[in-house]
């Protein structure tokens, strides 16, 4: 203790001033950079994070209160009507019957085959045999296509999405009995209906034929 007091007393005033100034600066530097600055940086970081989270919250709340969510639900329901998650063969038959009635043709047969994989799901290939006059058959194929039309500009869905892969027309006289056809034509159409989830089975057995008449 005495030696340190003696040492202090041996210091000149100038050296003591330098030592004191250095000690003050050391305290200020250490205090600022070790204690205060990290807290300030942390506060700024939390501030930025809070602002970002707040913006996210505003965006989410805006989305919740906007019509985008309910509109998407409505659109999805509409699209599911065009491409359901299971085959719903009854719906297809009703749609074919309705189209044939509107076009004035007669459906002689609908034969679904086993499902095949296709874009975004599975397709149910069917052979549809219809009989009618040429322009009525033209209207029939138009009605089948028009039930679901989705383009970049618009979405119209009033039934199942059906696609025709091939079409074969033959004069009714050349096909079977050939009695009193009056210009009737038999159209054999390779029609595809679509199912969005794979794994569902066609309700009617593959190869079975459903015959309807108006």
């Amino acid at each position, binding site marked *: 203790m005495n030696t340190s007091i003696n040492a202090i007393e041996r210091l000149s005033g*100038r050296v003591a001033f330098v030592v004191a100034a250095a000690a003050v600066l050391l305290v200020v530097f250490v205090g600022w950079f070790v204690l205060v600055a990290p807290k300030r940086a942390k506060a700024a970081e939390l501030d930025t994070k809070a602002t970002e989270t707040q913006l996210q919250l505003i965006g*989410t709340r805006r989305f919740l209160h906007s019509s985008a*969510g309910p509109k998407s639900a409505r659109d999805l329901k509409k*699209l*599911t009507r065009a491409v359901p998650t299971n085959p719903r063969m009854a719906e297809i038959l009703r749609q074919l019957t309705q189209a044939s009635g509107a076009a004035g043709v007669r459906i002689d047969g609908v034969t679904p085959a086993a499902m095949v994989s296709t874009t975004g799901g599975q397709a149910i290939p069917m052979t549809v045999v219809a009989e009618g006059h040429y322009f009525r058959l033209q209207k029939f194929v138009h009605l089948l296509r028009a039930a679901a039309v989705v383009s970049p500009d618009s979405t119209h869905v009033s039934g199942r999405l059906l696609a025709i*892969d091939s079409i074969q027309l033959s004069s009714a006289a050349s096909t079977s009995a*050939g009695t009193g056809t009056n210009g009737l034509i038999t159209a054999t159409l390779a029609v595809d209906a679509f199912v*969005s989830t794979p794994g569902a089975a066609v309700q009617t057995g593959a190869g079975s034929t459903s015959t309807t008449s108006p």
Partner: protein
Amino acid sequence: MEAVNLLPGYARPAHGWAAIGKDLSTRRVLAVGGAVAGAAAIALGGLFVHERSVVNEKRDSLSTVQAQLTAAEAQAAPLRAVQAAKATKLSAIRTISEGRVPWENVLRDLARVLPSKIQVQAVQATLPTPIAPATGSVPASVGAISGAPTGFTITGSASSHNRVALVLDRLSVLPWLSNVMLQSSTRGTGGTSGSSGADTFTISATFNSLGVTK
């Protein structure tokens, strides 16, 4: 014994900065320095406490906003899932819908270009790349010859070879047909109902679905 400078004040060297603290008492300098360092330490401590409380405040407000965001996101999650499902389905349906051929336009074009005095017995048109690849339910084209263009076949009867030539010319005009080729044109032998003496023809062509007006 203390050294005494006998030079007058103006003649003494290192006057100014070098003289600072020269006449100060060591104890006093150290006491003042210690007091200043202590004050600085107290000020920095106060600042630290303040910054710490600011950080805690910001942390609390951040956790509040985060909790609100989590709740809002939980509410929005089903809607976002619906939106994603809609986008996926829409994309798949759009691909199919835009890939379909408006067969009514094919039939309309065909009816427009076929000349009079010919009788069509069968027409078959198949997409080059069917939407459902395994469909294949329509019977093979009538009278197809190996190496002949595929996708479109028309069979009928005409009053003369000139009429058959006119059919070939007219079919070549259609934008959705290319490589129109005559497969056969046979002079009728008579006997069959309604076609006695008429030329029976088979024409095949390559069906190009992109050429069909949408």
